[in-house]
C-alpha cells in the first residue's frame, strides 16, 4: 500500500501524484509507440478509431462528467467539425489552417447551444440537445451548395506542412495519438485551473456554486464551448479517417455511442473516457467474431462432449442464425447500457479502482466503500 504524504498544497494539483505514475504511463506510451509496427493494419485502424472516440469521450467527460450537464447531441458537433474540414480542404486550405478553424467554429456553435442550457435542467437539456442534433442533420442534408447534401463529400488525405499523410499510414496513427495526448493534457490542466474547479462545483451543487460567487451562465456556456470545440477537432480526424462524409453518418445513434463511451468507462475521470472508447470500438469486431468463429467453436466443443455430428451441426446452424440476425448490434448495445447502469454504474474505471483497492487493502476490503448513495426522488419541478 502506497501512502502519499502531502506536505504542501501544491502537491494536490500535481499531474502525477506519485513517481510510480511516470513508469506506468511511460510504459503505456512506449507500447503505443511501437504498436503500429507490430500489429496488423486492421488493428492499427481500430486503434485510430479508439483515439478519435477517446477525444470525443474526453470532450463529453468535461461536459457530462465534470460540469454535470447532459448532451445527446454530440454527433452534431462532430459533424460540424468534419464538414468544416471537408469544406475548407476543398477550397485548398492546408490542415494547419482548417484543423484549428474547425475547433473554433464548433466551439462557437457549442457556446450558442449552451445558452438555452442556462435555463434548462436535466431532461429538458437532453431534449434540447437532441433537437439541435436533428436540426444540424437536416441542415447538412439540405444545404447542398456547401455540404453536397445526401451525396456526401469526399475528404482527401491530410496535407500536413507539405507532407501527405494517408489515412491508413502510421503517420496518421501518430497524428491522432499526438492530438489525443495534447487534448488529455490540456483537459487535465483545465480541470486543475479555477475554471475546472468551477465546473466541478456546478456539477456538485448549482445553488452552492452560485452562492460561492461562481457565474453559472459564464461557466456553463464555457463548458459547452470547450466540449464542442474538442469534439470538432475530433470531427476533422474522423472525416479524414472515413475519407467520405455524409449526413446519415452523424445520427442519434452516434450521439448515443458517445454517451455510452463515458457511461461504460465511468463518468468521473478521464481514464473512463479512454476505457469506454476502447470498449465501444471493439464491439464491432466482437460481433463479427461471434458470427464467424463462435458457432464453429461451440460445435466442436459439443462434439467433444459426445453430441453426435448431426446435433453439433444443428447447434452450429442455430447459433449462426442467431448471431447473423439483423439488429443484433442494437440488442447488444441495449444490453450493454442496461447491464452497466444496473450493475457497474462506475464503469470500467470504477471496476479497476475496486480491484486495485482490493489488493492494496488485501484482507480488509469492504464492498460498502463504493456503494452508491440511494436517495428518494424529490420533485425536480421545484428547483
Amino acid at each position, binding site marked *: 500500500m502506497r501512502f502519499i504524504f502531502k506536505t504542501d498544497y501544491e502537491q494536490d494539483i500535481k499531474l502525477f501524484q506519485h513517481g510510480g505514475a511516470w513508469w506506468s504511463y511511460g510504459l503505456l506510451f512506449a507500447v503505443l509507440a511501437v504498436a503500429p509496427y507490430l500489429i496488423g493494419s486492421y488493428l492499427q485502424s481500430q486503434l485510430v478509431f479508439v483515439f478519435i472516440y477517446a477525444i470525443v469521450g474526453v470532450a463529453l467527460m468535461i461536459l457530462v462528467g465534470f460540469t454535470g450537464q447532459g448532451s445527446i447531441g454530440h454527433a452534431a458537433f462532430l459533424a460540424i467539425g468534419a464538414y468544416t474540414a471537408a469544406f475548407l480542404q476543398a477550397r485548398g486550405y492546408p490542415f494547419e489552417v482548417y484543423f484549428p478553424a474547425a475547433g473554433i467554429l464548433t466551439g462557437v456553435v457549442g457556446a450558442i447551444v449552451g445558452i438555452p442550457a442556462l435555463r434548462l435542467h436535466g431532461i429538458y437539456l437532453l*431534449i434540447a440537445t437532441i*433537437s*439541435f442534433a436533428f436540426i444540424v442533420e437536416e441542415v447538412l442534408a439540405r444545404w447542398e451548395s456547401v455540404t453536397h447534401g445526401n451525396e456526401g463529400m469526399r475528404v482527401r488525405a491530410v496535407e500536413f506542412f507539405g507532407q501527405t499523410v494517408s489515412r491508413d499510414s502510421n503517420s496518421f496513427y501518430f497524428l491522432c495519438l499526438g492530438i489525443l495526448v495534447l487534448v488529455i493534457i490540456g483537459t487535465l490542466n483545465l480541470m486543475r485551473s479555477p475554471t475546472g474547479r468551477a465546473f466541478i462545483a456546478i456539477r456538485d451543487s448549482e445553488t452552492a456554486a452560485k452562492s460561492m460567487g461562481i457565474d453559472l451562465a459564464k461557466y456553463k456556456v464555457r463548458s459547452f464551448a470547450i466540449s464542442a470545440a474538442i469534439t470538432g477537432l475530433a470531427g476533422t480526424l474522423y472525416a479524414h479517417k472515413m475519407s467520405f462524409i455524409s449526413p446519415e453518418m452523424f445520427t442519434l445513434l452516434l450521439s448515443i455511442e458517445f454517451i455510452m463511451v463515458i457511461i461504460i468507462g465511468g463518468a468521473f475521470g478521464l481514464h473512463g473516457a479512454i476505457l469506454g472508447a476502447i470498449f465501444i470500438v471493439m464491439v464491432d469486431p466482437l460481433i463479427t467474431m461471434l458470427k464467424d468463429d463462435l458457432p464453429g467453436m461451440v460445435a466442436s466443443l459439443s462434439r467433444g462432449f459426445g453430441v453426435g455430428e448431426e446435433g453439433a451441426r444443428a447447434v452450429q446452424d442455430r447459433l449462426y442464425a442467431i448471431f447473423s440476425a439483423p439488429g443484433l448490434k442494437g440488442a447488444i448495445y441495449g444490453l450493454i447500457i442496461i447491464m452497466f447502469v444496473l450493475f457497474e454504474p462506475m464503469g470500467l474505471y470504477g471496476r479497476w479502482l475496486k480491484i486495485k483497492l482490493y489488493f492494496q487493502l488485501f484482507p480488509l476490503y469492504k464492498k460498502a466503500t463504493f456503494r452508491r448513495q440511494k436517495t428518494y426522488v424529490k420533485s425536480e419541478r421545484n428547483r
Partner: protein
Amino acid sequence: MLDFLQQLVSGLALGCIYGLIALGFVLIYKATEVINFAQGDLMMLGGFVAYTYITILGLNYWLGFLFAVLTMGLIGMTIERFVVRPILGYPLFSIIMVTIGLGFLLRSLAGMIWGTDDLKIEAPFSEGVLRIGDLVLAYDKLSVIVVTVILIAVLYLFFNRTRLGTAMRATSENMLAAYYMGIPVKRVVSLVWAISAMVAGVAGVLLAPITFVHSNVGLALGLKAFPAAVLGGFGSIPGALVGGLIIGVVETLAGFYLPQGWKDVAPYIILLLVLLLRPEGLFGALGRKKV
C-alpha cells in the same frame, strides 16, 4: 381555402397520434419524474403483440385489441420490476440511459422475432372515410382522434379526482414523504408503468392500419412526440394533447407550404423556441428551488 382546411384536419389527426404517445411520456413523468425514452418502442411492441393475436392466432379484432393492451400492461410492469426499480432514486441520467438501452433492445428483439417486413392489421373500420362537405377523413384516423380524446379525459379525471391518482401525484412530489403517508410507493410506480405501457399498446394497435407495424416505427414517432410533451409542459395530461395537436398541425402545414425539409425540422425548431422562451411549457408550472 379547402386545401388549408384539409391540411388542418390531417394535421389534427396526426397531432392526436403524437398526443397519444406523448401521453405515455407524461404519465410516467407525472408519477416518477422519469422520462421513458422507450415509449415509442413500447408502442411498436403493442402493434406487434396485436398482430400476433389478430392475424397469427386469428382472434376477433376487438378481443385481440383487449388482449394486446392487457399484455402490454404486464410487459410494462415487468420492465418496471426488473429494470427501473433497482435504480429508482439514482441520478436521472442513469434512468434515462437505461430506457434508451431498453429501446434499443426492444427494437432489435422485435425485428428478430417478427422480421423486418411491414405488417398490417385489418381493422373492421379501416376502409371507409368520413365526409363533411368537401373535407375527407379516413375512419382509422378518426378512431385515433376519438380514442385519444377519451383516454386523455379519463386519465385526467383519474389523476385529479381519485385516491390512487392523488397518491401518484404525491409520489412524484416526494417519494419519502409519500411513503410516510402510507402510500405503497413501489406498487404505485409499478402501476404507472403498467398504465403507460397500456396507453402505448392502444396507440400501437390504432396506428397499425395507418403506419403499418414495423420495428422502427416507434423510434420515429417517439422522437416526434417529445416536442409535443415538452410543448404541453411535461407534467400535464391535457398539455400532451394540445402539444401534440400543435406539433401535428405545424408539421403538416410546413410540409404543404414550405420547401422540402422544413416538415421534419419544424417540430424541433418549435421545441427549441419553447424551451428558450417558456421552459415549463404551455401548461406546466415551475417553482423555484429552495435551499
